């Protein structure tokens, strides 16, 4: 009996010890994101993590750098597992955040958003991409993601190359094509492009938006009806035309985003149609001055509030996750982002001194004020990203006609819609 009692005490003590250990381990905050350490976002969020460690010294903040592809392709499985972090950067859009939200994997943040006063930092209107309905379509439903930055696609240009030819920044599409004709005549490919990677689909979608209106965008992104391909068909025809005129080289089909950037940085091509995630590195080019302008002659451009912080339902330390999100929304961190050339969602534009950050912020303001954020082509249905990439690559390479290109997108889109 005595022995048994001792054993019981020993067991109880062990149990107590191990629970104690578990409790201590509970003070862990696992953060994941996929922004390169030298990008504006990476730098700003590093500062946020430092600030968190200072403010909450008892909590062990564990950070892991992931890649866009990792989260894009295995996101739902990670969120559904016990290995899910407490807070992570997640890709906005129906195919990613929408899919996860519709499966109940993401924590609703509506209460936190109001209780913590985030509604004073980010306006309700900017949260459209953080809300998903039960089908996983964005725009309404519980708030599951908090955006931290904005992003949009514009035209980066080599100001030195334009100046040397006495060219001004184009304000209409005709001016833009006239400039490109001049470069083609000199044997220079005007637009550095990568069709073996994501950039080409942004140019393609830019040209699609030329013939799109608010209804088309709402239907397309909201998966409201089978795909109306008219704007895509027009974009495909324009791409074929641009390739034949030499604005884009068919070489693009063998290039990835880094190769494209190398072309631009080497001064081999004066233009890149690219997203603001390139701003910082292009702003740091020393060999020439790089700047950006909005794609001329149209209201819409690919763009949106950026990827978001989400808290998995399986997160072990949600309060700490909210504390962390709050820090990333603080003026300090947001200003760092702006001053590193990024596009903060809540920075005071007067305090942004970095020229790249200032240009980007100003252009973003212009685009937002004319209601010109056209979102992205890959959001509507899961897996569309790859299909759009391959189809765009094919139409640029000349192995698919614009009609085949549009039909291919439609087949995939309609099938994905049927599965929802």
């Amino acid at each position: 009996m005595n022995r048994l009692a001792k054993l019981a005490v020993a067991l109880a003590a062990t149990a107590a010890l191990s629970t104690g250990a578990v409790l201590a381990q509970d003070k862990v905050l696992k953060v994941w994101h996929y922004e390169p350490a030298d990008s504006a976002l990476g730098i700003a969020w590093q500062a946020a993590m430092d600030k968190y460690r200072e403010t909450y010294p008892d909590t062990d903040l564990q950070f892991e750098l992931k890649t866009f592809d990792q989260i894009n392709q295995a996101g739902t499985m990670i969120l559904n597992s016990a290995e899910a972090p407490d807070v992570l950067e997640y890709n906005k859009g129906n195919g990613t955040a929408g899919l996860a939200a519709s499966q109940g994997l993401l924590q609703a943040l509506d209460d936190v958003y109001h209780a913590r006063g985030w509604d004073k930092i980010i306006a309700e209107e900017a949260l459209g991409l953080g809300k998903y309905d039960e089908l996983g379509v964005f725009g309404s439903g519980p708030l599951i993601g908090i955006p931290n930055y904005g992003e949009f696609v514009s035209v980066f240009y080599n100001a030195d190359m334009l100046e040397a030819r006495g060219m001004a920044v184009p304000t209409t599409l005709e001016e833009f094509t006239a400039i490109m004709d001049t470069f083609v005549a000199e044997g220079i490919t005007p637009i550095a492009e990568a069709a073996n990677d994501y950039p080409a689909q942004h140019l393609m979608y830019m040209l699609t938006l030329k013939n799109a209106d608010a209804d088309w965008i709402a239907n397309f992104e909201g998966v409201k009806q089978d795909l109306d391909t008219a704007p895509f068909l027009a974009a495909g025809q324009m791409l074929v035309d641009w390739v034949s005129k030499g604005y884009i080289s068919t070489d693009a089909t063998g290039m990835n985003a880094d190769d494209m950037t190398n072309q631009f940085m080497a001064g081999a091509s004066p233009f890149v149609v690219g997203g603001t995630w390139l701003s910082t590195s292009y702003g740091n080019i020393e060999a020439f001055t790089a700047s950006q302008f909005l794609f001329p002659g149209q209201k819409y451009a690919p763009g949106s509030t950026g990827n978001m912080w989400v808290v998995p339902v399986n997160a072990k330390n949600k309060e700490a996750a909210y504390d962390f999100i709050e820090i990333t929304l603080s003026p300090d961190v947001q200003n760092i982002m702006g001053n590193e050339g990024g596009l903060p969602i809540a920075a005071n534009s007067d305090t942004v001194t970095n020229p790249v950050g200032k240009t980007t912020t100003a252009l973003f303001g212009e685009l937002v004020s004319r209601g010109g954020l056209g979102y992205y082509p890959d959001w509507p249905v899961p897996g569309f990203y790859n299909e759009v990439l391959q189809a765009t690559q094919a139409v640029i390479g000349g192995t698919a006609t614009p009609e085949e290109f549009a039909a291919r997108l439609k087949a995939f889109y309609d099938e994905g819609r049927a599965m929802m």
Partner: protein
Amino acid sequence: MATVTKSYRQNNSAYWLYLFPGLIGFVLVVGIPFLMNIGISFTKWRGIRMPTFIGLENYERLITDGAFWMSLQHTLFFVVAMAVVPTIISLIVASVLFDYVSARFGQQMSSFFRAGYYLPQILPISVAGVLWGWILNPHGVLNLILDATGLGALSSNWLGDQTLAIYSLGFVMVWLQIGYSLVIFMAGLARVDPALYEAAELDGAGAAQRFWYVTIPMLRPEIFVIGLTTTIAALKVFAPVYVMTNGGPDNATLVPSFFSYYHFFSTVRIGYGAAIATAQTAITIVLALIFLWVQARQTEEAAHD
């Protein structure tokens, strides 16, 4: 006599104990996932929540899916690029190194070459893929060299051209695979009795005849092993495609593994992805069995000779 047999049997059954750890590993890592995959292939599943049983629907879709048949054709190409061509090249190179280089320039020189040819096998495939990406991109090293040497007309969009892409990948695979078979062939040659070569030489056989009548027959077991392992590797090839072309341009380098991965992770049609994987596994197993059967017959014939 009876007791001896019995104790022999007892000893024999005791071996099973030692097989257990491996067997458990096999069941956990291969067996269970394999069966689960077959099960999932009969369902429609988004990767979360419960799968819904849909019978053979995925397979019906599979046999009418042009992309799947295209990926199988590409697999045949990869069998040539990973099994046939590297085996032939390394057979010749191994015999040159063994017969000529090592005899003329010494053992060290031949070891140096052997190590050099083996190097691609040591490089992580992702690193090799990125390096080849730099070499083969339209503004890459290869085109620069061609332009600089006045062969600019030959420079191409190696990985981005619809017809060229798969040959570029195939070339990289040959580069990658030679080392593997070369090392095995050289080990095999070391086993061959030098007297055979001496006898052949005395009988007036030239280098080519010695290669054909001595080297190849003596290396038959190695050729079979390499044929089998590299063919299976070709049927499963994934990493180089993933790193270099992502199956593109426009599916020109699509292979079954990548196709299955694409549906598992991109379109999140897990049931369909599983059906592709199951079909691929069936094909691989059938081909491997044919290979083993042919080999068994050949060895039997050799034993009767």
